[in-house]
């Protein structure tokens, strides 16, 4: 489904990603872990199409299409979803109106009829249950005054509404208490199928107790330096990132 080859990206001339290779197949969950500043969020942003990042080398093929050629909105319509690390507060735009606009633009692109108000509300009510989000919250301005947990739940709720093929969760677990983490993970797990895939970007192993990955990759200095299964995450939890850094740095000096 997703094939990343030798991806290099920089911001304002500073290279952040220095040759990422990653293959993601339908039905899989990949966790990307790594110390702060390793390039995890940059990878998520580049996949979603954030314009500040310049791709200097490499390719990203998504469902046979050159993803890097597409605008952020077309990527979303093709089925890429980024759950933001810091969801943006947008005063004056109601969550409901925003989502209806988004859902119908995505549907139009996919050749589906737009949802009328009634059908949209029905769909919304169904998906709200997934992340136990209150309808009152959705009548307010988008993310404005939401708590940290509410914002993250709203991200997963939007994911449920947009029905993506590839979901990228950027530090969705950071700052969540255990109840919120359970709710968010539960939502993600219920949305999982053999037709879609998930990339979980996280600093902590804790999330992976709830969203169990098929593969774990460690990102360091803009490269994937180690890949393994969920046991690798346990090891990182236990020993921290220093041993990986040492391993990589010693190789580099040899």
């Amino acid at each position: 489904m997703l094939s990343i080859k030798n991806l290099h990206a920089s911001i304002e001339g500073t290279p952040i990603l220095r040759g990422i290779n990653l293959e993601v197949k339908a039905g899989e969950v990949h966790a990307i872990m790594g110390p702060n500043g390793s390039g995890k969020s940059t990878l998520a942003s580049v996949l979603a199409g954030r314009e500040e990042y310049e791709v200097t080398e490499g390719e990203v093929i998504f469902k046979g299409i050159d993803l890097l050629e597409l605008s952020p909105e077309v990527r979303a319509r093709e089925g890429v979803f980024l759950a933001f690390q810091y969801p943006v507060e947008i005063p004056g735009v109601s969550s409901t109106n925003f989502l209806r606009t988004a859902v119908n633009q995505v549907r139009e692109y996919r050749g589906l009829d737009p949802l009328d108000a009634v059908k949209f509300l029905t769909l919304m009510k169904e998906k709200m249950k997934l992340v136990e989000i209150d309808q009152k919250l959705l009548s307010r301005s988008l993310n404005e005054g939401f708590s940290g947990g509410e914002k993250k739940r709203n991200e997963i709720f939007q994911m449920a509404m947009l029905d993506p093929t590839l979901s990228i969760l950027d530090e969705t677990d950071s700052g969540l208490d255990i109840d919120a983490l359970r709710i968010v993970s539960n939502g993600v797990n219920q949305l999982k199928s053999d037709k879609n895939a998930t990339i979980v970007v996280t600093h902590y192993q804790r999330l992976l107790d709830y969203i169990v990955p098929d593969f774990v990759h460690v990102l360091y200095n803009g490269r994937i330096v180690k890949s393994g299964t969920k046991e690798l995450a346990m090891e990182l939890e236990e020993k921290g990132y220093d041993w990986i850094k040492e391993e990589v740095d010693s190789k580099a000096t040899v």
Partner: protein
Amino acid sequence: MSTLIKHEILGEMLNSTGKGFEQARAEGKEAFESQGFPTNKSEEYKFTAISKKLEQSIQNFGAAESFEVTAEDVKNNLFEGFTGDVLVFTNGHFQSSLSSEIAGIEVALLSEKSDTPVGSIAKPAKDPFCALNQAVFTDGIFISVPKKAVVEKPILLLNFNKAVNGQVIQPRVWIEAGDFAEVTFINHTVNLSDVTYFSNKVVEVKGGVNSQIRFYKLQNEGKNVIEANNTETDIHKDGRFTSVTISLSGELVRNNLSLNIIGSNSEGNMYGLYLLNSKSHVDNHTNVDHTVPHAESNELYKGILADQSRGVFNGKIFVRQDAQKTNAFQQNNNILLSEDAVVNTKPQLEIWADDVKCSHGCTTGQMDEEALFYLQARGIAKDQAKGLLLYAFAGEVLEHIRDESFREYCTNLVQDRLGSKF
């Protein structure tokens, strides 16, 4: 006098004659002659070169004459779903045959109400255009809402403007509301002219004790309009005055809005939106004068500027020594959509009392790129995402319009503009 001589040709406007009010006119003329037409050296008109613009754009400084419009014209220019009463004006002249008879409200020509103290609220010494109007206003309208009258539906002041013979329109409006009266006015102007004209209007509003007055103004007369507007009110004890000014076009527009808070436990609200493109220039000068304790003022002006448009905001707040326990808030936010658009914003607070809550803030910036990306990342096209964000920005002002038909009308104009032009 040197300023007047420099703009000698503009002085022709003083040769117009109107009916009655000899003393007020003489005072207006005197006040005007001591101030003269503003130049770029006048502090209050530093960013708005209105005199120069008048010299360049107006060839005939004679007063524009009244002309005929039909009931059909009136009907065609009402907002969809509007159910209120309408007072019709052509070039500032009242057209009684096309206007509603409003039950319980006195409407008369100013010339028929010769004891009206014109200039007692909008004092001519404060502004040269206010003085000029007082010297030569053609005729005006007198509207009186009696004590305790609650006018449920808004009263629309529908102005048709067209340069007929002369190019200068100088209307004057006197509104008075009795104690406990409640009333809403909507001022809307339709431009039928393809020749540039100058409108110099003065509106004086005398509130009553515990009166509730709303005054909405839409300025969307197109590119060939130069306008000076002075609107001023006295807010009495327990009274409330709310102004909403929506400016969508104009070659050059200068609004002076002044609220004199002279009774305690009262409230003055000023909201404004300027959404400008091409070379439009809109200048809002507001002034709220707190002279008594326990009163509140709220002000929010927002601007979205594209192309080579220019916005000016100057917000003066005075809190006099006696005006303890005053709450005064002011905010001006601007979004610039082009490199060539300019905003000059200046809050001006003078606080003499020591037990008050006052705040002000102004921001000028570009569109929030992070918010834009967020919307795009959910599948919304970039142009539409921009429109959505800008509309949300503007919506904070539009929501203060209570009358639904007028709010919808303004909302549609704003959305059309944000969807197509921006």
